[in-house]
């Protein structure tokens, strides 16, 4: 289980900067076990093909498959959740003295994956949640704080993350920092996740004023417009972002996210255009 603050293990946040606590739960042991089993499963599939093709009889297949199955290792899957969704089974705690206690901050669920009530953490599924703490919240503490995430799993099993450290500063970001494109984009992304479209738009417009060819800002603008239902504007912004990517990027691979969004938006707009 991992707990990160603004994508870091340790971070410093100014008074006017949002804090995003992200928690992810992975099942490494299951991944190792599944990777051990994968070639055995492939071998059993090949046997099934031989059986279907008449190259072996049922008895031979059963014996060979059973021999292979005995080599497989069992995979323990963890479950978390219940009515209301699995993210309610995650608590964020802070350390006061030597005691850990649940924080009483208003934490906003920004995103979570998978979107199910009960999540299974197996070899391939990672459970991930982002919780936001608004910059202007009156409960915002000051000074250094250690925090961690605690998850209550099925069967009353509890797991804890390692500790993350946050240094809450009383002062705001210096003016020069505040006007940086990446800072404005980060604030815009936070506002969008909180559903504050106007605020998000204000930040992204400031970012684009600072750097009109900013790919992250153009991408964010597209997402804001899409969220507001302005599909044409969203499409234009995604297309501009894509063009800028082609001009600026030296990456081998195309920006598949932009391409997918453009394709889907065009498909949605076609009836309107017609």
């Amino acid at each position, binding site marked *: *289980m*991992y707990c*990160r603050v603004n*994508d870091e293990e340790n971070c410093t946040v100014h008074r006017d900067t949002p804090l995003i606590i992200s928690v*992810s*739960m*992975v*099942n*490494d*042991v299951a*991944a*190792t076990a*599944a*990777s*051990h089993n*994968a*070639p055995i499963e*492939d071998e059993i599939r090949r046997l099934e093909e031989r059986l279907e093709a008449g190259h072996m009889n049922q008895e031979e297949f059963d014996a060979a498959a059973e021999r292979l199955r005995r080599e497989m290792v069992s995979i323990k899957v963890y479950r978390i959740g219940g009515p209301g969704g699995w993210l309610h089974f995650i608590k964020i705690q802070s350390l006061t003295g030597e005691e850990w206690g649940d924080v009483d901050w208003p934490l906003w669920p920004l*995103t979570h*994956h*998978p*979107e199910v009530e009960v999540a299974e953490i197996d*070899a*391939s*599924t*990672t459970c*991930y949640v982002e919780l936001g703490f608004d910059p202007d919240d009156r409960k915002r503490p000051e000074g250094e704080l250690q925090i961690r995430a605690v998850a209550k799993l099925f069967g009353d099993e509890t797991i*804890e993350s*390692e500790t993350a450290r946050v240094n809450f500063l009383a002062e705001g970001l210096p003016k020069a920092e505040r006007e940086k494109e990446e800072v404005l984009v980060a604030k815009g992304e936070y506002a969008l996740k909180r559903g504050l479209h106007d605020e998000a738009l204000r930040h992204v417009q400031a970012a684009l004023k600072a750097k009109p060819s900013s*790919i*992250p800002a153009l*991408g964010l603008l597209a997402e804001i417009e899409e969220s507001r239902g302005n599909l044409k504007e969203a499409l234009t912004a995604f297309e501009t*972002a*894509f063009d800028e*990517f082609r001009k600026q*990027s030296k*990456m081998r*691979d*195309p*920006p*598949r*996210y*932009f*391409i*997918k969004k453009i*394709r*889907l938006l065009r*498909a949605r707009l076609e009836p309107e255009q017609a």
Partner: protein
Amino acid sequence: MSGEEKPSTPKKVVIQVNRPGPKLGVDLTKTPKNWLPDARNARLEFRARIYAYQGGKWVYPGEPRKITFILKEVSKEKGICLNFPSKNKSNENPDLFFANDDDRMKEFTFDEDKTDKKNCPTTIVARNDNPSHNYHYLKATTKTAVTEAVAVVRCEDYGAFGVLEASAPECETIPPREVGGQPGEGVGPNDIKIPRDDNDNKIADIAPQDDGGAAGDSDGDDEPEIDGYDGDGLTNYEEYRGFIVKRGRGVEHIRTSIKKKDLFIYDKDGLGTGFFHKSGLVLHFIPKPDYYAGDSSKKDASPDAGKQIINFNAGNATKGEQHALRLVNERIRGCYGYCYGDGPGLPKVTNRVAINKKLCTGKDEHADQLSAVIAHEMGHAVNVFHHGEEPNSDHVCGGKVTDEGGRVTSGDVTCVMRYDNYNYTQWCHVKDDGTHCRHPIPSPENPGTTFCDSKRGTGCNLVSNAHRNDATVGACKTHIRIKGW
């Protein structure tokens, strides 16, 4: 002759008179067959006895003598296994030494301290599981004459090896015996190997990595099977010596398989490995960068020299460096993920596998998108390419941009390396008579969940045998390679 003889010079003759009595011999017990080296303060007892030769056989006890135990040809591997402790904390102290702090060795004097540095790790898997010590003695002698002595050898490496012998004044050496067994017959060296290693490849005979006595520097892992590319970059001895890996919030030591290809991953941000386990590589996770000699400082090229190496403490029977993979969450503009480095290629040219978790878990994304993207990008880090390359110019057919056959959307639609939900709603192939034939690609599509093992088109890429969109590259499983040398 002069007739006059010179007086002869008196010659000094030394006659040694042996004390009458039986011939004496000293033997030693063998290493238990099932013993494997363990760096966490593992201790082994070895018993030497003095015998008298009577009636054609060795009879215990013989006359008391001071017994000396000597450890020789002892391994001095860096660290205690291939990836612990970190480079700047590892030493080359002998991996086997006499436990001078052990109560069972109170009646010994010690000699030949071969300590390189006094920085042995005291915590390997659990706190203080390798208690602090200042000496690594290779010689121990009983303070008084005895007919039996027990020496305690301490182990401090998961791949430790060495030879132990016992001697005593005026004693022949008797071939070693099994614990609880009778002394051997006749005379002969009593030295024994630690651990039991009759085939002399420095790997315990009982360990699966011994492979019937194959050379310690063999590397023949053949699962998953890839034509002509056996091996995972870790030799039999290295797989035997093992690694410290993540286990829950703690760590454990593992020895890896010499049959299955092992890949080590540093999952910095808890992304998980998605569908990558379908590659057939056995995945192991390390808890911190220290366990692979640190993150590369370069941003977009192969890792710097000496970084991201899983066998950085290698010594005996190594063939070369083997790289691990770094997996990180990163905001990559417009992309779900990217494999940074000089690849696609081997882990040794992979700087990091970056995944844009935010985009992969967006509200419109398929539930499997994150798992598929992770597997796709990690595929690039183990030498797997796309099913085909993108065209240099659009292939316009029937007024629409289509994907020409054999390109990025071709092949098995369940494979993570194929581009799904891409730019095209149709794929097109040109028939023998020169006419174009278009076929729809569904929208939306489910992301792939596995690695394909053939080029053959499936799903929308298999309309019929005459209308099949086979991959140009494809057969992704057969391209997987990780060996760095």
